[in-house]
């Protein structure tokens, strides 16, 4: 792929330049589409898939600088390699293009040998970047993957306000004892698939899976307009999905699953911790600890979803809550107002 057969877009308002560049690229074995100004180019980039853009700077309607600015702001286009082809005079223009994210700069008239070398190098870089993204994507959610790309995997945290949710399977040990190890792995995979679906569907990010439990964050790394409502919506959907799964399990003569969910909201530090070779996205703060305690308390309270006062205050009036009063939770110095979400 890096050697030939890539799909390239040439944006140049000058027909002679456009035709010649297109021809040179076809001779190199690439497929070429052409745009006569920046606006047309951007429309095509958003509609079709390209491996690389060759961009002229001086164009009517929308010039090359504006195209670069729009591409940087667009998560879908940010990583597309761009080679600027321009006969603008001066190093300042070149520097500005590179600052705006262009990979390379070729002066016109374009030297065919340089053209070939730069195209291959850019395509190879893109291939490596795609590969890396694919790896990250397999091990992290797309939100975390994107944030990692943006922050360059920088370790360290930032202060955010968000909602944390803990969830785990009640009485998991007795379930594992009643079935084979293969059945347990399959059950966990089904469980995680359903939980991920509910959580990511509501805008949350799963950041830890431990045994039969998971932790997720709402409002980081990307901000949400309504982290409390999103977390509660996810929790209700999780309960519903588990009930549907139980109908199948009981029909097959297996034990039903029960889950507990604890949700708390507050200020926390979110970021990557670990080393540069292995890091995880996590949150640290009182709310994290509180959410874990609330989840543990669901058994004693005999309610599947428990939330703290901050989360309750963040919900809109339509949500039915049952106030359980001030509860002394394990590991907490003072009592905490606890609410159960109706399911």
């Amino acid at each position: 792929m890096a050697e030939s057969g890539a799909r390239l877009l040439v944006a140049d308002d000058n027909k002679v330049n456009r035709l010649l560049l297109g021809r040179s690229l076809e001779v190199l074995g690439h497929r070429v589409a052409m745009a006569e100004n920046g606006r047309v180019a951007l429309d095509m980039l958003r509609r079709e898939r390209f491996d690389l853009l060759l961009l002229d700077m001086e164009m009517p309607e929308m010039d090359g600088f504006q195209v670069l600015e729009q591409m940087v702001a667009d998560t879908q286009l940010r990583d597309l390699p761009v080679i600027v082809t321009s006969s603008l005079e001066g190093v300042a223009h070149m520097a500005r293009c590179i600052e705006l994210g262009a990979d390379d700069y070729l002066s016109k008239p374009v030297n065919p040998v340089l053209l070939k070398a730069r195209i291959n190098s850019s395509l190879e870089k893109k291939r490596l970047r795609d590969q890396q993204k694919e790896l990250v994507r397999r091990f992290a959610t797309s939100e975390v993957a994107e944030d990692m790309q943006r922050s360059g995997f920088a370790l360290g945290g930032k202060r955010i306000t968000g909602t944390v949710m803990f969830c785990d399977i009640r009485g998991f040990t007795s379930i594992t004892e009643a079935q084979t190890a293969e059945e347990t792995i399959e059950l966990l995979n089904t469980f995680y698939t359903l939980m991920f679906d509910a959580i990511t569907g509501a805008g949350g990010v799963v950041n830890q899976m431990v045994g039969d439990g998971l932790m997720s964050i709402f409002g980081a790394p990307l901000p949400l307009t309504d982290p409390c409502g999103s977390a509660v919506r996810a929790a209700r959907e999780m309960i519903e999905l588990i009930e549907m799964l139980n109908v199948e399990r009981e029909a097959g003569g297996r034990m039903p699953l029960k889950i507990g969910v604890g949700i708390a909201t507050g200020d926390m530090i979110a970021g990557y911790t670990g080393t540069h070779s292995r890091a995880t996205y996590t949150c640290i703060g009182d709310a994290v600890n509180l959410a874990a305690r609330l989840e543990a308390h669901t058994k004693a309270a005999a309610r599947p979803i428990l939330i703290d006062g901050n989360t309750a205050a963040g919900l809109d009036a339509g949500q039915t809550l049952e106030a359980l009063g001030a509860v002394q939770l394990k590991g907490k110095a003072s009592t905490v107002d606890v609410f159960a979400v109706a399911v």
Partner: protein
Amino acid sequence: MTSTTIDPAIFAELRDTAGADFVSELVATFADEEAPQMLAELRDALAAGSAERFRRAAHSLKSNAMTFGAVSLGELARGLELGGLPANDAPLVVLEAAYADAVDALRELSRG
């Protein structure tokens, strides 16, 4: 034709990279479609007193002239691109003459 009308080395390299037939078509596109528009735009921009339009048109013409190895035409266009609006159309008369020479030479070369 002097070697600065069309630099034979640049033209030969263009023909080797893109193919003789393609280069003939490209010369026709330049001479029949693009360049007359740019020359007209230079005159319009001068009449309208628009330095930016004038600079852009000169820039495009320079770019294409350099592509074909039309060195003299390219240098004249570059002078106009960087020099701002001229006081009168004398530089355009010179440019148009250089353009006529370049196009004659290009058509000749692309037939051969």
